[in-house]
């Protein structure tokens, strides 16, 4: 029998406990529980719709931060349902790093057209040109952190007082501490120590001019909830979430999509493989997984048996233990 604890303890043949320092030695559990009822908890949808309706009423000019990823697609669906048969009362804002997967851009334009939404795109490349941010260099160069500046400028330009994002608390430990209405100061900064208490379902979005609120309606959803929702709602998603053949190379034990945006070293030789993406950010910060899943059931099956978390495929989180908290302090969502 094997046990987990602050130290891991197993019992030897005579029943005496033996302390094992680390997890790597453990391969068995007392009981294996795995969710097999894959139905989506509808309570989460009711909660998210409630939040979106509060946003429409408490703010003057809210926008949805849309990346073309599965979480922001879910948010758009929820907004569609929240105000039906009326129109979605939010514009979409896409901060384009210029390093997107072309498939997500294609999807974005299809969705905007289909739902008749208003889309604003602002480019990290422009912020670089204006000298506001400096392009990173080296092997791990990415525009992920740079987009914060472009985002804050766009918020100021359009005078958005609320930005709705698809971030979830289960993604990352700093995000687990986020409120549903996350108040940011004039500089977009998150102050973890001064968060407003959120009691019951009462949301307080009162702010001063210049401040803004980041809103996270799917805070309480897990990755699996999102996929089950996409399946039950029969939502179309960008093709890169399903298996496809792509030029990839290996780095740090992860599969990277080959692209002109990535600085490869000589020994990083691209090859063709069947992969899909579990999470979609920039091409510079999102790793692929080897997969043959070409439908939602298979994707869900892969997630259920995965030994790696969703953000494990996010190179941007691997920079340091507090990478997410530090980016949020600087105005990231």
């Amino acid at each position, binding site marked *: 029998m094997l*046990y*987990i*604890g*602050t*130290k891991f*303890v197993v019992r030897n043949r005579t029943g005496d406990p033996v*302390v094992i*320092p*680390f*997890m*790597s030695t453990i391969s068995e*559990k*007392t*009981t*294996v*529980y795995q*969710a097999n009822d894959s*139905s989506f*908890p509808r*309570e*989460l*949808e*009711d909660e998210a*719709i*409630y939040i979106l*309706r*509060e946003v429409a*009423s408490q703010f003057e000019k809210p926008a949805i931060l849309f990346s073309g990823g599965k979480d922001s697609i879910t948010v758009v669906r929820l907004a569609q*349902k*929240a105000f*039906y*048969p*009326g*129109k979605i009362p939010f514009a979409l804002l896409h901060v384009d790093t210029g390093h997107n997967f072309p498939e997500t851009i294609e999807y974005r334009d299809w969705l905007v057209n289909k739902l008749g939404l208003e889309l604003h795109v602002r480019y990290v490349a422009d912020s670089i040109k204006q000298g506001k941010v400096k392009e990173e260099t080296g092997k791990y160069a990415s525009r992920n952190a740079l987009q914060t500046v472009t985002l804050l400028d766009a918020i100021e330009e359009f005078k958005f007082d609320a930005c709705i994002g698809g971030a979830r*608390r*289960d993604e990352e*430990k*700093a*995000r*687990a*501490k986020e409120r549903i209405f996350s108040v940011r100061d004039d500089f977009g900064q998150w102050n*973890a*120590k001064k968060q407003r*208490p959120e*009691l*019951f379902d*009462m949301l*307080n979005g*009162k*702010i001063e001019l210049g401040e803004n609120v980041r809103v996270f309606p799917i*805070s*309480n959803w*897990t990755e699996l*909830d999102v996929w089950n929702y996409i399946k039950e709602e029969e939502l179309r998603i960008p093709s890169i979430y399903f298996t496809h053949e792509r030029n990839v190379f290996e780095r740090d034990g992860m599969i990277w999509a080959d692209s002109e945006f990535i600085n490869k070293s000589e020994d990083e030789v691209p090859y063709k493989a069947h992969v899909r993406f579990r999470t979609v950010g920039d091409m510079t910060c999102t790793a692929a997984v080897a997969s043959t899943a070409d439908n939602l059931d298979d994707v869900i099956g892969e997630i259920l048996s*995965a*030994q790696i*978390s969703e953000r*494990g495929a996010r190179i941007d989180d691997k920079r340091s*233990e507090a990478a997410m*908290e530090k980016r949020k302090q600087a105005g990231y969502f």
Partner: protein
Amino acid sequence: MDILRIATAGSVDDGKSTLIGRLLYETNSITQDKIEALESASKRKGLDFLDLSLLTDGLIAEREQGITIDVAHIYFSTPHRKYIIADTPGHFEYTRNMVTGASNTSVSIILIDARNGVIEQTKRHFYISSMLRIKNIIVAVNKMDLVAYNQEKFEAIKAELLGIAEQVSFKGQTLQFIPISSLYGENLVRKSAETPWYEGATLLETLEKFSTQNSELSTIQARFPVQHVVRPKTEEYHDYRGYAGKIASGTFLVGDLVEALPSGQISKIKTIEKFGTQLEAGNAKESVVITLEDNIDVSRGNMLVKVGEQPESRKELKAKICWLDSQMLTVGKTYLLQHGINRVKAKITNISSVIDIKNMSLSNEAPADGGLKLNEIGWISVKTASPVFADKYEDNPANGSFILIDENSNSTVGVGFVE
């Protein structure tokens, strides 16, 4: 699939993180890369074991100080249901964060270190759980391995807490005691061979059996706060006027006679809709759009209730309040009172008594310094600028609480429970 929302409270020393870590592990909710990240973080701290608190203490300040400061939300599932744990701090200084985290839950797990027994913190957790009217309390007597799984020790703690329960518990609250060892996993998921004298269920079995709060909320008087008026003004929906909101409590049926508050106008429910699908009934916690037979005056912040079930219209409220701000609550000051989604100006007219949450003693006098300080709980009277349609918190928790917002700082500074 339903959702059970749980609050845990305690300090790192009680083994709270270990308990959560093990629940995640046993339910396959923690992945290899997260464990590897924990492993390297533990090593960096110079530890030779896995520090599971690093899993939930997500802020730099928490990891530096080795304490939980703010609420973390943790998720796991069993084949039966989805669980959301609000992991809240146990220190007195962060009582407000505990109240916040526990406010959305229907189960509270109070952790006790079997070696230390009932301490001040235990009483506080119990008191706050009861104040929030959390129906199911699990007292997990942890670290039983360190007291040789001694039954007397367990029974003594149980007896002491049952004594406290006579003061703080309410009718209908259930109290269950489970001897556990988070470290060895005894009685968490697997029934322990070390406690043959314990005949009850394991922690997870106990959780699996609880009913969620929603089913109970649907059986009480119906309240529908209107969040948003849907008026598409398109050709197809030219005269459409729908009232969007989340049903706070009770069940509404198509055909029900309803009264709009505060106007007092009466109409009949024509449809209850979700994204165009017409329902026969809407239950508590469901976000729906309701349309009425007649064009009556209803706008955001108004409430639809069934005729014959109207709540009292009040401009003066008595309430128990927990103060959440470093700036004191003072008599005579004006705040914004938010009841559900409805905001009105409110003035504090009196503070009648204060409870000393550290010693659990009630003082029937107004506080000497004239106000309520951060983390204090007291009884106040409030006068509102316009009527509030609140129920007593004990009758209807979904319509019986409010928050106070300071108009200078815009902060949420207090939470009240209507009496």
